[in-house]
Every structure is written in structure tokens, then in C-alpha cells.
């Protein structure tokens, strides 16, 4: 055991501190803000590497540092930090990808007025996300989870002058909040049944066998409730609606939060509390895991279909993220936890790469985001094109050199061995084909074909923006080295098994199947979209080939399957009605009650004032009249004439004399 666990709290604390300091800087000190943010991230990266080292030495490493937050009576609320392979891998991915994105943002946000505020929020997000992955208590995780949601809200609505951004931020926060409600209920239930929210506590934690034994049948419901939180945060159906709208935020935000890290938090959560899901598993299957699988499958397929019909470069990537997250959930659900987490790590790299690449494209096209208005960019932006192509191949699942291919293969392998049903297996085949299809469509529209940009010439982005692209692309490729089945080092690291280098395990049926699927997808994409953006026989230039061929289907997909409209007419309409009823009640009923009490008070006041005016005032007035009369009387005695006074003295003396004589 090393002592790094005692300093693990520094990893989220350093970016938080950087964020606080940046918040105090004025808007003019841009270089200091950027330097502070990058320094904080570098420090977090260094600490993460140091934290990673002990986990590499032993298999199944786990170090825990718990502390008491506050006590109430005999009980105490304890929080803690944990360091295990899962946390270490996530820490590294978050800090590396975050660092690349921070550096990219220096170039992307260079002309923005609120540069300093952006980096403050980015640092804040980074700290919160790092806290999520090292939390040892469900409550501490939830606290950081909410902080991450807050950071997401602040960053989506970063351009506060834009109404659409503010609406998107509100939508994101509220939708994830709905999921968090389930999360919180699950947390409460868990605390009630097992008495502790700590994951690992020397045998007493809620994920250790003693704690799990206290749960019984409630484990399924607790797991599903907590999964609901993951559904919200990771954009699974039915709470996926906020993710595409979240593209209103700046592109680095989309890359960091809505591709690589925050949305991965939901998948991470499921992996973290996996013992709850798999309690009482029969052949590796429980009811809660079945729920996870089917929601994941639905999400993956639905989002991939919608992505084919989108015209905004970032929306395609957003729906792609939703689809990939669905795939990760499927993987976790069928028992391939390590495969799912490896896909999270790989996806973090190549999705961030794709988003940053799209940001570079948008920057180079002077703000244009519609792919139908781009084209032929590979001549103008070569570095962006090459890195983007690598990201695209990783996402599509091209094996051998690209990490995404290996992880997808692993996931499909796990899904294929799921006892209850083979349906997810074949549906995921469709998902893989669709993924390759929409990515090919996007690349052809953006980088190939005839240039359709209406404004001036597009230009390549500056080095500060292309360097992170290159770094991420390298990361995506290098990651594949540890992901191959020939040397599944990362798989062994995450699961605690020992691994050995074996080239023969490269040759397996799954590899051929995935090659065929990916190849089919790319080929189909090239065939369908090879003349996209240009006139082709009867089809005008501006119409998408699929739109021309199947207008009804295309409209259905382009409108996101009308799910937003469905929600607007049902859930939101209900909320509005409830709000109006509450308002009416408040204005008339409760306010009326208050006014009634006020009226009673007024009656009392009138009574009292009457008594005061007629009773008390009259008495006082009468007494003053009496006093004045008495005064007049006594003033009459003061005539001012000496002889009168003298006369009074004389009479008084006479009276005294008589009295003296009479008494004696």
C-alpha cells in the first residue's frame, strides 16, 4: 500500500483551487487564466500518474481512505476516497483528454470576451469530474455528480446572450435532475437497508459481501433507481433529449463534457456499483442488468438512426455519443464490465478528438456548422483532416490500429454470449454498420467533394489547436496497443487477471465479423453519399441522398423521431398545467387566507383604535382641562404685588399664633 491514498483528495482539489483563483481574475488577464487552468490540469495529471503507479504493481489493488463528515447521535456519516484500477484508468483518461482540450480552448476561445470565465468553469468541471471517479461513498459521488451537472449547465449556457444556449442549459440540467431523483431515491434505500453508503470499508462497505447480504431483493430496485441517474447523465433513452441540444455550448465544452467525461460518468457509475447490479446473478444475468441491456440497445440503435439524417456537424457527433453510450451500457449489462470501461476510455480519446476536429473545422470555416455548406476541406485543412479521419476510423471500429475497433470487438463478443437473448447481438451488428455509415457520410460531406463554403476561404487552424488533435490521435492509436486481444493488458489491469502475449488469439471469428460489418458500413456510406453535396441525376445539390430516396423516413429521423415534441405535449404540458393550477391556488386560495387573517387583525385594530380615541384620549383631554383650570386658579394667586404677598404672610403668621395659643 502506498501513501498516495492519503493525498488522493488533492487530485480534484487542485483544479478546484485553480478555478477559484481564476474566478478572482479580471477579464484582461487571459494568459494568467489559461496558464493557471493548464497548470492545474497538469498537476492533476501528474498526481494521477503517481496514483496509478501502485495500482500497476499488484493485481486487484484497492486502497481506501475514509473519514467521518459529521456524527449525529450514535451514527456517523462517513465519506471516503478509493483508488483501484477502475479509478486510476478513469483518472488518467480524464486528465489527459482534459489537458488536450484545455490547450485547444486557448486557441478556440481566443476571440471570446469571456475567456477567463471559460477557463474558470472548465477547471471547476475538471475538479468535479475527478472527484466523481475517486469517491468511495455513494453520497460523495452524488455530491460531485451534482457539481459536474452544475458545471455542465454553466458551460452549455456559456454564451449567455444566446436564448437557445440558455434554454439548452436549462433543459440539460432539468433532464439530468430527473435522473438524479432516481439516483437519490436509490441512495436512500441503500442507506436504509445496509446502513452505510461507503463502497469499501474493510468489509463493512455496501459493495462488500456483508453489506450486500443485507439487501436481499431490494438490490434490484436500488440498482434500477441508481441506473436511472446514469440514464439521465449518460443520455440514455428516454432522458437523451438534452445531449443534442447541449451542442449550443462551445465546442471544447462539447468535447470535454458531452463526449469524453461527464457522459461517461453514468457508465462509470454503473461499473462502480456493479456488485449491486449483479447480486444474485444466474448465469451472469439479473433483472436490473436486463433493464440496462435493453435501454442501452434501444438508445444505441435509435441514436444511430437519427444521426444519419442530421445536418449539423456537432449534432451528428452528439447522437453518435448517445449511441456509443448505449453500446457501453449494453456491454456492462451483459457482464463485459472491463470491455465497457475500455470502450469508455477509448471513446473518451477519439470522441474528444472528433469534437475538437469539428471545432477546428468550424473555426476554419468561420463559424459555419452545416455540413451541407462545407466540402472539400481536406485540401485546406490537412492536419485536421488526417486526425479527423483517424478519429472516424476509431469510432467506426476499424480494427488493428485503432482502439475503438478492439473495444467494439470485445463488446460484441460479450454480447454474443448473453444467455437470455441473441437479439441485442444482431441489433448491435446493425448499430456498428450504422455507425460506420453516418461517420462516412459526415467525412464525405465535410472533407471530400466540391467546396461549397459561401464565405471566404477556409483555413487550417493554428498550432495551438492542431497540436491537441495530434496528441489525441496518437493517444487513440497507442491505446490500441494495450487493447488488442493479443496482449489484453488493459483488460487484465481492470479485472485483476494476469495476461500474456499471444498473437494467436488475434485470429478469432469476432474479428472477421467486425471487419465485415465495418467494411460494409463504410462501403455503403461511400456508395450512398459519394455524390453528396453535388447534383446527381435528378437530385438537386442541396438535398441529402437519403432524403431524396426516402423523404418520409428522412423527415422522421431528421426531426429526432419527434421525441422532443412528444415530451413537450405530454410531460411539459402537464408541468405547465400543474404550474398554472398552483399559481391559481397561490393567488386566490392561500393569498385569500392570508388576507382573511389580515382582515381579522384589521377588526381588532379598529376596535382598539376606537377605545383609544374615545376612551383614553377623552380621559387625557379631560385631565388636561382640569390641570389647566387648576393652573389658572393658582396663577391667580400670583398677583405680582408685594403687599398681597406680605398680607398672606401676616395672615399665616396670625393663624399660627392662634394655633399655638389654642394648643398650649
Amino acid at each position, binding site marked *: 500500500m502506498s501513501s498516495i491514498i492519503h493525498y488522493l483528495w488533492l487530485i480534484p482539489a487542485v483544479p478546484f483551487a485553480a478555478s477559484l483563483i481564476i474566478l478572482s481574475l479580471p477579464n484582461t488577464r487571459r494568459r494568467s487564466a489559461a496558464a493557471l487552468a493548464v497548470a492545474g490540469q497538469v498537476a492533476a495529471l501528474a498526481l494521477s500518474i503517481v496514483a496509478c503507479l501502485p495500482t500497476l504493481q499488484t493485481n486487484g489493488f484497492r486502497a481506501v481512505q475514509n473519514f467521518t463528515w459529521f456524527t449525529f447521535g450514535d451514527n456517523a456519516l462517513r465519506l471516503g476516497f478509493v483508488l483501484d484500477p477502475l479509478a486510476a484508468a478513469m483518472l488518467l483518461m480524464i486528465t489527459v483528454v482534459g489537458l488536450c482540450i484545455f490547450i485547444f480552448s486557448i486557441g478556440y476561445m481566443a476571440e471570446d470576451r469571456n475567456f477567463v470565465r471559460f477557463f474558470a468553469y472548465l477547471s471547476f468541471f475538471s475538479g468535479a469530474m475527478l472527484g466523481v471517479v475517486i469517491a468511495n461513498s455513494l453520497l460523495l459521488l452524488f455530491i460531485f455528480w451534482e457539481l459536474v451537472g452544475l458545471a455542465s449547465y454553466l458551460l452549455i449556457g456559456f454564451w449567455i446572450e444566446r436564448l437557445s444556449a440558455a434554454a439548452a442549459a436549462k433543459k440539460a440540467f432539468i433532464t439530468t435532475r430527473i435522473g438524479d431523483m432516481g439516483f437519490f431515491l436509490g441512495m436512500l434505500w441503500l442507506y436504509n437497508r445496509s446502513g452505510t453508503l461507503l463502497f469499501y470499508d474493510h468489509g463493512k462497505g455496501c459493495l462488500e459481501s456483508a453489506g450486500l447480504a443485507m439487501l436481499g431483493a431490494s438490490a434490484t430496485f436500488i440498482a434500477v433507481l441508481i441506473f436511472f441517474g446514469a440514464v439521465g447523465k449518460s443520455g440514455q433513452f428516454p432522458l437523451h433529449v438534452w445531449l443534442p441540444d447541449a451542442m449550443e455550448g462551445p465546442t471544447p465544452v462539447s468535447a470535454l463534457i458531452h463526449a469524453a467525461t461527464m457522459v461517461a460518468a453514468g457508465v462509470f457509475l454503473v461499473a462502480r456499483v456493479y456488485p449491486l447490479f449483479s447480486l444474485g446473478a444466474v448465469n451472469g444475468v439479473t433483472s436490473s442488468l436486463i433493464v440496462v441491456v435493453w435501454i442501452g440497445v434501444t438508445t444505441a440503435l435509435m441514436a444511430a438512426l437519427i444521426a444519419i439524417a442530421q445536418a449539423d456537424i456537432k449534432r451528428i457527433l452528439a447522437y453518435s455519443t448517445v449511441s456509443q453510450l448505449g453500446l457501453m451500457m449494453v456491454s456492462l449489462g451483459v457482464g463485459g464490465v472491463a470491455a465497457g470501461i475500455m470502450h469508455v476510455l477509448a471513446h473518451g480519446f477519439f470522441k474528444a478528438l472528433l469534437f475538437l476536429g469539428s471545432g477546428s473545422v468550424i473555426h476554419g470555416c468561420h463559424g459555419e456548422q452545416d455540413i451541407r455548406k462545407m466540402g472539400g476541406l481536406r485540401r485546406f485543412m490537412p492536419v485536421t483532416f488526417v486526425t479527423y479521419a483517424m478519429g472516424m476510423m476509431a469510432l467506426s471500429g476499424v480494427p488493428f490500429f485503432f482502439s475503438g475497433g478492439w473495444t467494439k470487438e470485445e463488446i460484441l463478443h460479450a454480447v454474443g454470449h448473453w444467455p437470455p437473448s441473441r437479439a441485442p447481438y444482431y441489433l448491435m451488428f446493425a448499430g456498428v454498420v450504422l455507425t460506420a455509415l453516418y461517420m462516412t457520410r459526415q467525412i464525405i460531406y465535410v472533407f471530400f467533394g466540391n467546396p461549397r463554403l459561401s464565405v471566404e476561404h477556409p483555413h487550417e487552424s493554428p498550432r495551438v489547436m492542431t497540436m491537441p488533435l495530434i496528441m489525441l490521435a496518437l493517444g487513440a492509436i497507442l491505446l490500441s496497443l494495450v487493447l488488442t486481444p493479443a496482449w489484453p493488458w488493459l483488460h487484465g489491469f481492470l479485472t485483476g487477471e494476469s495476461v500474456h502475449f499471444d498473437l494467436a488469439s488475434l485470429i478469432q471469428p469476432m474479428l472477421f465479423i467486425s471487419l465485415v460489418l465495418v467494411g460494409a458500413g463504410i462501403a455503403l456510406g461511400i456508395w450512398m453519399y459519394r455524390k453528396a453535396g453535388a447534383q446527381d441525376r435528378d437530385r438537386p445539390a442541396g438535398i441529402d441522398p437519403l432524403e431524396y430516396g426516402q423523404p418520409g423516413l428522412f423527415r422522421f429521423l431528421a426531426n429526432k423521431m419527434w421525441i422532443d415534441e412528444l415530451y413537450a405535449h405530454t410531460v411539459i404540458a402537464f408541468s405547465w398545467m400543474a404550474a398554472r393550477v398552483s399559481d391559481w391556488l397561490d393567488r386566490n386560495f392561500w393569498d385569500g387566507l392570508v388576507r382573511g387573517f389580515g382582515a381579522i387583525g384589521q377588526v381588532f385594530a379598529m376596535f382598539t383604535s376606537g377605545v383609544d380615541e374615545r376612551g383614553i384620549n377623552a380621559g387625557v383631554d379631560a385631565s388636561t382641562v382640569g390641570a389647566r383650570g387648576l393652573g389658572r386658579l393658582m*396663577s391667580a394667586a*400670583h398677583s*405680582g*404685588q*408685594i403687599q398681597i404677598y*406680605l*398680607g398672606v404672610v*401676616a395672615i399665616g403668621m396670625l393663624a399660627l399664633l392662634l394655633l399655638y395659643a389654642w394648643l398650649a
Partner: protein
Amino acid sequence: MIPTLQAFLIVSAALFSIGLLAALSRRHAIFILIGIELMLAAANLNFIAFWRFAPQAHQPTGVMFAIFSIAISAAEAAVGLAMIIAVYRHYHTTNVDQLDQLKG
């Protein structure tokens, strides 16, 4: 024939009354002073009368009283006259009926 004590007392009482009457009924301030002097004189007479008819008549107690009284009445007359002069300078009248500024 030596007068009895009562005779002296009656004379002094009469003198006192006349002085009182003068002080109370005259308008001129100096006349009031005269009345006061008469009252003081009556008191002196009383002192001497009681001294003369006391058992130990050789002790000069009464005479001392009378001399003190005369001295004090002289001082008081001086003060009174000074006051009347001051008042006259201010109000240009000695008619006490017109000195009623303290009327309340």
C-alpha cells in the same frame, strides 16, 4: 408707679399692628420700609420689656438682643433703600402696585 409687663406688651403689640398696617396698605415703597422699622421697633420693645421684668435683671441679655436687632434693622433698612433706588432707576416709579412683573 411702674407699669406692669402687660402694659409694655400691649404697647408693643399696638406698635407692631400699626407697623403692619403701614406695610400692607401704603403704596409708596419707603412707607413700607417705615412700617417694617416700626415692626422691628415693636419687637425691640418686647425684648426690653421681658428683660426688665425677668428675675435676673442684671444680665444684659435683653439689651444685647435689642442692640443686635437695631444693628440688623439698620443694615436691612440700608439694603431696602438700595433696592428701592435700583428699582426706581429701572422702573421710574416707587409705587409698588406697579411692580407686578412677577405676576403669573
